[in-house]
């Protein structure tokens, strides 16, 4: 079992090549994410912002707090935040232990986040706590496919991939519900593996 510090170190190392490695993801899925994040309103928290690749996908003039638990990611994200037309604060924080008061945000956005959070249900419960009663959660995530064979392939790959990257077999829809959210919309982008979720309290 990896400790939190091991996870932080892993993503610190990944920060060096993160933009380069994710060019394909942005090319392929950027349009979907832009459409999803266009729904952001009020005070927004972007969880696991990474190096800030998603900042240009948000509409201008929002009040955004972007968090990540990797100092190396935060350092790089701060450089990109300067180009956002609106308020965008980047800070080091762990989604499993947020220091924000209850009901602080109108929108929480995630982008390939809950494949990496060590305890996803705990992280989602923290989001549930800091989200306002009428708030919304917007998620772009990859999850374990429902197909038996493809799911088994992801189960086999996960122990190898997790050493340097994310988990490939997370049951994110179930985790969202377990944390107390109601899924209001689910959209399959690639197979039933890359998805958009919209959820409410």
């Amino acid at each position, binding site marked *: 079992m990896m400790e939190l510090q091991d996870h932080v170190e892993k993503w610190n190392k990944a920060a060096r090549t993160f933009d*380069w*490695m994710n*060019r*394909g*993801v942005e*090319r*392929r*899925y950027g*349009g*979907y994410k832009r*459409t*999803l994040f*266009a*729904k952001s309103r009020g005070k927004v928290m972007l969880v696991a912002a990474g190096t800030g690749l998603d900042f240009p996908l948000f509409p201008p003039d929002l009040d955004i707090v972007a968090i990540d638990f990797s100092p190396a990611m935060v350092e790089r994200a701060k450089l990109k935040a300067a180009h956002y037309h609106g308020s965008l604060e980047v800070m080091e924080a762990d989604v499993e232990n947020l220091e924000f008061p209850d009901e602080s945000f109108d929108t929480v956005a995630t982008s390939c986040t809950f494949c990496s959070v060590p305890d996803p249900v705990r992280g989602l419960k923290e989001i549930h706590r800091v989200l306002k009663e009428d708030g919304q959660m917007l998620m772009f995530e*990859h999850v374990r*496919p*429902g197909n038996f064979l*493809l799911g088994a*392939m992801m189960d086999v*790959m996960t122990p190898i991939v997790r050493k340097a990257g994310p988990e490939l077999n997370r049951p994110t829809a179930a985790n969202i519900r377990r944390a107390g959210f109601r899924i209001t*919309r*689910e*959209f*399959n*982008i*690639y*197979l*039933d*593996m*890359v*998805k*958009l979720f919209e959820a409410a309290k």
Partner: protein
Amino acid sequence: MRPDTFVDMERGTAWFVRGVDYTSTLLAAGVTAGAVHFLIPSHWPAWVSMVLGMFLGMVVLLVVFMGFSLVAGPFGILMPGMTAAMAAGMVCGMTMTAQKASFVEALTVGALIGLGIAVSFHLYDRSLHGEVSRNGTRRSA
């Protein structure tokens, strides 16, 4: 555009990534078949050749994946590529080596396996793509 409508990729991007998906799957299967032809002796037991063929498929996939996922994202490469490379390694290892098939024959079988799997994944993806209804089934694209 309605604000609650998720848009597909622009046509040019969609063609590009679909082309990358097909090319990478064909390459993974074709190169695996070629590697099996050159590296696995014909007198080895079929089951050993089959397992080694699948292993070779994984090695080939790793190289193909590293290259192509950078330009079109990982998942469209990984899933069909892994299936195609393992299938090509298994089929070519089990049957082609024992029959002393030529390199061109091995490559053709590998490429056909790759094409079949790329098309299958494409169709499967289109059948799942879109809104998911509350009971987990696809509602509309």
